[in-house]
């Protein structure tokens, strides 16, 4: 698929059950490129002055690089432990937004650009009792049997035939006659 605009379907995943036991932040390093003078980097410069040191202290596992580059738009580039890289332009962003995006990149495990999530949940064990099979509610003794079987070939709820009903009526009548004779 060389079409770069096609969204690849992906499932929700955590690398090797990250978070089930210990949580390891998947962001390896972050590069903040900015211009020292241009107005589009103002938010970035403000963030570097105020919020960056806190961010770096709170996330000791993330290496933060600053690259002042003249006459260029400000950019955040993130690299993850699985080798993914992601860059995003923060041109004209206020410093709060830059912090917000940085937190997002920090909590991600991989770059999700160009992916569409098929389902918002994922489980390796969708069934506890075992999924339904055609044999779940079948009598296992049927494994050792040779077909055809007369009893199983009959319909389950056969209504009474008229012959049987007449026979029953006849027997009832006979019984009544005998009892009335006895009563006499």
């Amino acid at each position, binding site marked *: 698929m060389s079409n770069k605009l096609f969204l690849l379907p992906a499932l929700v995943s955590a690398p090797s059950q990250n978070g089930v036991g210990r949580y390891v932040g998947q962001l390896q390093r972050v590069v903040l490129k900015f211009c020292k003078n241009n107005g589009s980097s103002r938010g970035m410069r403000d963030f570097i002055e105020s919020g960056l040191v806190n961010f770096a202290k709170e996330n000791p596992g993330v290496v933060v690089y600053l690259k002042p580059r003249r006459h260029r738009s400000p950019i955040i580039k993130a690299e993850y432990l699985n080798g993914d890289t992601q860059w995003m332009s923060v041109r004209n962003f206020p410093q709060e937004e830059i912090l917000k995006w940085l937190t997002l990149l920090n909590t991600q495990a991989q770059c999700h650009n160009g992916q569409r999530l098929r389902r918002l949940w994922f489980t390796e064990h969708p069934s506890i009792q*075992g999924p*339904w099979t055609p044999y*779940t509610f079948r009598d296992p003794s049927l494994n050792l049997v040779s077909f055809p079987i007369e009893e199983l070939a009959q319909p389950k709820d056969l209504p009474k035939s008229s012959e049987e009903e007449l026979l029953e009526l006849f027997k009832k009548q006979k019984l009544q006659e005998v009892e009335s004779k006895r009563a006499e």
Partner: protein
Amino acid sequence: MVFTSVVNFVRSRGPDEFWRKRKVFRLAAAFQGRKRNCYSIAIRYVHRALVYATKGRKLKKIDMKNLFETRVQAACEQHNVGYATFREGLVRSDIMLNRKTLADLACWEPYTFKALTDIAQRKAVDDGLLDLKNADSLDSTITRGIITDSVKPK
């Protein structure tokens, strides 16, 4: 001969044409051939695709409802309970499960689903919805109504 004034006659449509058309190409990324690569052809099919998507939102709900119903019906017929009886019995036992959950249980937790059919059958027999020949097999299932009805204060 260098014609320098010819260049002046080129009318630029604007700098954002690439990105304006890219928004359309993103939606046409899964199409075939020229519908994917040529703008004036792609825009027509993208419009149709968007219309289908709008109509499909309603149809998807209908289709999924039918699918779940088919699955639940097949599952409860295996336990000799009709779909209508099953749902009525569950609702009367205060078990408000929707079609989706019932279908998921039927596929992934078949024994739980069997227990639900038992409850529904028991309730239906007690309320007179169902006429069973051998209702003794249901004695192991107890619903709330039985206990409150049989244990009356003296």
